[in-house]
């Protein structure tokens, strides 16, 4: 059975390592924060100027001067630091963030990603996504495997305007964990109960399938 959003976040959390500085995009990626393994030091960066995002505030304690990049009220943790936007992106562009997790409309077998614009329909802007994908060492996309119309989101070529090229390293979808290799998509894991055939059918580009594909472990 395909994963729900929470499970996608849970699976991505397994990619975290002690000492990681991580930027989590809006949506499913934000949920990853809830599954940081106990005892592991992971510091969350918010590109509007905070290193060390804490949990959402208690009711009545929301501070308008303290929001995340999704404009949600947050808190900060001991050891946090605040800084301006140019410094924040110096941190991102300079490669000091270990991992970026973000959503996508489409991802290609060579790691291109479209995530910010649907011509004629959605014109919200790219925010910090282009900077993040151009600079982070490791970029994981959190997404459903197919779109609302059942069309593959993992493709040979993006149809929508690009956010970045050759940048996505891994995709964790509701159906599979897929690595972007020099030779294209490589299937690493299946969602529990989802078959390799189902994943192949739902993917818009060839999948390298090397031996037995294990189920994700939670």
């Amino acid at each position, binding site marked *: 059975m395909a994963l729900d959003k929470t499970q996608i976040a849970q699976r991505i959390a397994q990619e975290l390592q002690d000492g990681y500085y991580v930027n989590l995009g809006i949506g499913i990626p934000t949920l990853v924060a809830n599954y940081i393994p106990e005892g592991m030091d992971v510091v969350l960066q918010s590109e*509007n100027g905070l290193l060390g995002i804490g949990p959402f505030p208690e009711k009545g304690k929301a501070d308008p*001067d303290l929001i995340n990049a999704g404009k*949600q009220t947050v808190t900060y943790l001991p050891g946090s630091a605040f800084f301006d*936007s*140019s410094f924040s992106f110096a941190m991102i562009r300079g490669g000091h963030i270990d991992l970026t997790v973000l959503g996508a409309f489409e991802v290609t077998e060579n790691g291109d990603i479209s995530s910010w614009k649907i011509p004629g329909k959605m014109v919200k802007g790219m925010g*910090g996504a*282009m900077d993040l994908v151009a600079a982070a060492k490791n970029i994981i996309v959190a997404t459903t495997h197919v779109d609302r119309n059942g069309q593959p989101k993992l493709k040979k070529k993006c149809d929508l305007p690009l*956010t970045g090229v050759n940048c996505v390293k891994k995709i964790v979808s509701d159906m599979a964990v897929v690595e972007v290799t020099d030779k294209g998509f490589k299937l690493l894991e299946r969602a529990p109960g989802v078959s390799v055939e189902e994943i192949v059918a739902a993917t818009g580009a060839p999948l390298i399938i090397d031996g037995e594909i294990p189920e994700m472990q939670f």
Partner: protein
Amino acid sequence: MNKVVKNAEEAIADLQSNQTLMLGGFGLSGIPENCINAMVEKGIEGLTCISNNAGVDDFGLGLLLKKHQIKKMISSYVGENKEFERQMLSGELEVELNPQGTLAERIRAGGAGIPAFFVPAGYGTEVAEGKEVRVFDGKPHILERALTADFSIIKAWKGDKAGNLIFRHTANNFNQPMGMAGKITIAEVDELVEVGELDPNQIHLPGVFVQRIFQGVGYEKRIEFETTR
């Protein structure tokens, strides 16, 4: 040298139609509420506004949009504003979207006397159209130009009468770099203190960058997405 003005009206008295402005803030956090309201009141038009976001329909830059005072926006994210979307799609409003980090760095560069610089962000996307591409260390980059403005209008937490500013939490965001990039920088602050009251090691933006300063009144500090546990 007196940088202190009475209020927003006095601060923006010589601001004119068709000028280029930078306006600090991220979402509705750290926006210069007093000056925005005074600009709505003053009714100047044809403005080019450099601001990461465009406010919401009934607050922040949304107020200027509603009255058609803005000709062009240079931003990174303009969601959460239906009137904005309408004006953009209808062609009434010119919009230049920048990657957020590129926008922030263009502003810092404008204040720092760096006319152009290379960044990786946007390479291979429509952002790169018409821009010089150059490979450094095996990675393609695009050349981006600095931004400056006739006025930078920013919001700080504490300021002293010499114009030294301290920002609070994530309300800093674009305010600090924008404060460097205006021909004239106007700072409105929650609290205006005497010279000497701020620790010189904790100044985020030194007074040299700030030409006018005043203590704002009646801050609404609206929260866009109040999220609690």
